[in-house]
């Protein structure tokens, strides 16, 4: 009985910790963006950018974040060329998401350049995070 009680407490703590890690990473990054002059952040704007299609100058092909991440953030996506599975981005189904600053920064850099052809501004990154954290 006592063990079960402890297990429940422990699980509760772990879930809370994952949630806290995520909140703290998003907070830390958004604070950083604010220091750079950005904010306030809007989930609606983040979502708009998320679905917006961009034309690749070379191939002429249109693509967006959804090309790889699919139109359902709670589902797995697939890398367009290699076919490698991309785990769901929604923190509600994937607790690891938005818990590692280095990881978030790395993929912001890569994917903004990939889709927009340039780095995202602090405002845009803040909006993206505002949208993604609620998914």
């Amino acid at each position, binding site marked *: 009985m006592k063990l079960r009680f402890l297990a429940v407490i422990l699980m509760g703590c772990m879930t809370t910790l994952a949630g806290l890690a995520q909140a703290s990473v998003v907070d830390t990054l958004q604070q950083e963006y604010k220091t750079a002059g950005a904010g306030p952040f809007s989930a609606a704007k983040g979502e708009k950018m998320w679905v917006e299609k961009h034309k690749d100058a070379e191939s002429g092909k249109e693509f967006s974040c959804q090309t790889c991440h699919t139109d359902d953030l709670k589902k797995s996506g697939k890398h367009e*060329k*290699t*076919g*490698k599975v991309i785990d769901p981005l929604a923190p509600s189904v994937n607790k690891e998401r938005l818990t590692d600053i*280095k990881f978030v*920064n*790395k993929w912001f850099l*890569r994917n903004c*350049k*990939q889709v927009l052809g340039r780095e995202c501004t602090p405002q845009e990154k803040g909006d993206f995070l505002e949208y993604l954290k609620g998914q």
Partner: protein
Amino acid sequence: MVMKNRIWAMVAGIAWLLVNSGYVLAGAPNTDFAAVTNIKYAKECGACHLAYQPGLLPERSWRKVMENLHDHFGDNAELPTADQPVLLEYLVNNSAERANYKRSAQMLHSIRKVDTPVRISQVPYFIREHREVANRVRGNEKIKSLGQCELCHQKANEGSYAENEIRVLGAESWND
């Protein structure tokens, strides 16, 4: 007498160990490629594709790949500057020149000295080995490119590409 027997037993034991570890039988290099052992490499590069064994390409090719991560076959695969030297060092230290593996040597020796291929699938030895496959997988929607080794080579992630381990999607077995 007892002592002598013991020594013979030891000699036999050591010989058995040597044969089993491949020292005696495999004065010839190991087959295929050395498996990936670097965790960072497996994690970073394996996030988007099979973490290709460093022994698949010569040092000069890996250097070129790492210099151009901002345009990695059309994708942006930039890494924080701090992470790059570690990965390059691993690739260089285990490149085809340095791996005592049979297929590494075959890959290496098929490349002209003046060439620096960055696509593994452009290495002459690779092309030769996949000549027939290339036509058969063309149009197969499940196989996006010949770079997806693991789709047909069941043990590609271990560096093993033996013919009896091949399963081409949609085909029973593969013999050429």
